[in-house]
């Protein structure tokens, strides 16, 4: 992210942003980018309005124009009534929205978002998603990193899955699910005494792929209902059954494994 943002020099390979070379045209590229870093990086002792006003000056935006844009952007991120408030007193979600407003002050063509909703409550996340979706509709390119697969599914047209700094898969959310998972997943839970006797072979032939977790068994299948019927016909009687659609989370876990990455 920092390399695309033209802050860090590239370590290897080839990078062009907006058709320019970051090593040569870093300043010109940055003038056309919006950045929402992972940390809020706000002036916590300044007011909401001053944070934006100070930032506008870095982009050489005339004062009057800056004032107009600030009012517009604060409305856009629903902070219109917070202009004079000191940043310190804002909630986490408000700070996040303020950082997004700040990232938009120069009308960027590309906006880089580094884990934009990490640590936010559900209401704040949904509000943020809504605003990001609107930006996308207006034609701004969003480049975002996230660990939340639902976020990727909501916002991304194209995504790449990275594992240990390597791209392991790329495509649209739907194509990734089609390629790396099945259409549906059946989640079975068993009573303790029954579970101990189970092995992957107990489910042989029932699903495209079987995954045994400590608390449940996942059967990857294209059609959930017939699979459940087959499970019962096999003489298995799970304590609970859930049929759900495959998600990007299934794809991600399949590709990067379930062990902790640290």
């Amino acid at each position, binding site marked *: 992210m920092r390399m695309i943002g033209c802050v860090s020099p590239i370590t290897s390979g080839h990078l062009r942003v907006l058709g320019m070379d970051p090593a040569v045209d870093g300043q010109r590229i940055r003038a056309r980018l919006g950045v929402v*870093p992972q940390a809020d*990086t706000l002036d916590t002792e300044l007011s909401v309005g001053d944070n934006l006003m100070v930032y506008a*000056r870095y982009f050489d935006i005339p004062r009057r124009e800056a004032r107009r844009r600030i009012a517009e952007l604060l409305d856009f991120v629903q902070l219109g009534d917070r202009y004079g408030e000191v940043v310190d007193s804002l909630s986490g979600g408000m700070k996040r929205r303020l950082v997004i407003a700040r990232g938009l002050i120069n009308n960027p063509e590309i906006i880089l978002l580094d884990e934009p909703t990490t640590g936010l409550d559900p209401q704040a996340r949904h509000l943020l998603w809504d605003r990001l979706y609107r930006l996308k509709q207006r034609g701004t390119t969003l480049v975002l990193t996230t660990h939340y697969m639902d976020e990727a599914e909501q916002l991304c047209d194209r995504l790449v899955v990275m594992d240990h700094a390597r791209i392991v898969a790329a495509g649209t959310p739907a194509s990734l699910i089609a390629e790396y998972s099945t259409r549906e997943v059946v989640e079975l839970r068993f009573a303790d005494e029954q579970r101990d006797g189970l092995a992957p072979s107990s489910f042989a032939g029932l699903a495209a792929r079987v995954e045994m977790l400590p608390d449940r068994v996942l059967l990857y299948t294209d059609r959930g209902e017939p699979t459940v019927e087959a499970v019962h016909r096999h003489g298995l009687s799970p304590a609970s059954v859930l049929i759900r659609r495959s998600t990007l989370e299934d794809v991600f876990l399949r590709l990067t494994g379930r062990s902790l990455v640290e």
Partner: protein
Amino acid sequence: MIELRPALPVAAHNFVVFRRGWKSAAFLNVVQPLLVLSAMGIGVGGLVGRSRGSVDGVTYLQFLAPGLLATTAMQTAAADMTYPIMSRLIWNRTYEAMLNTPARVRDLLTGEVVWLAARLFAVSLLFYAVALAFGAGRTATAPLAIPVATLTGLAFGVPVMAYSATQRGDSGFNALNRFVVIPLFLLSGSFFPITQLPVFLQALAWAFPTTHGVELCRELFLGRPLGIGALGHLLVLLAFLVVGMQLARVTMTRRLVV
């Protein structure tokens, strides 16, 4: 080469941050010289006058005021180039935000230095006004001590900024204050001529810009003819500033461009 224009947003940024607390800062910058010049200049100065008559050929207050002007600039610079820098590096990470704009590391540095210069000039001006009220600094050359004190603060503060950029927290600042700033405040010739010190301490004192600033401010305040020595002091101060800039460029880049 130093470009001023892309650095101005940084200086303006600092100004907006400063504006919030400017009244208390200005109050402090007037009251502190008032207190020190009263207590030391008039109080201690009275005792000195009675027992010795004069210091370095002038009254103690006349001797003291220009020295304090220079050390006040140093202390202001030391304060501004430690905790606030750490805040922009780590606590608020403002530098990270600045670097996401067209600003470059060198612009951040130039902006900080421009702002520090403005601030030191204001502090020195206030101090000078107070000194005037006490009857010090009434020679024709005395107002020149204002830019010289500003330069003294820069010569000390910019290397401190380079040091701050190497720190992971504020624990080093206590040591800096205790082992550098306070000793220099006391021993750089502001309170008594450094010829009173043992020779090795004199040599040590001359290794810091503050001592040169104190000396030059005093010559200007007292209206003494400026010789080759004065030029030497000026060059030392400039050298500290220039080398400090280079060091800060290295440490800040190392810190911010990763």
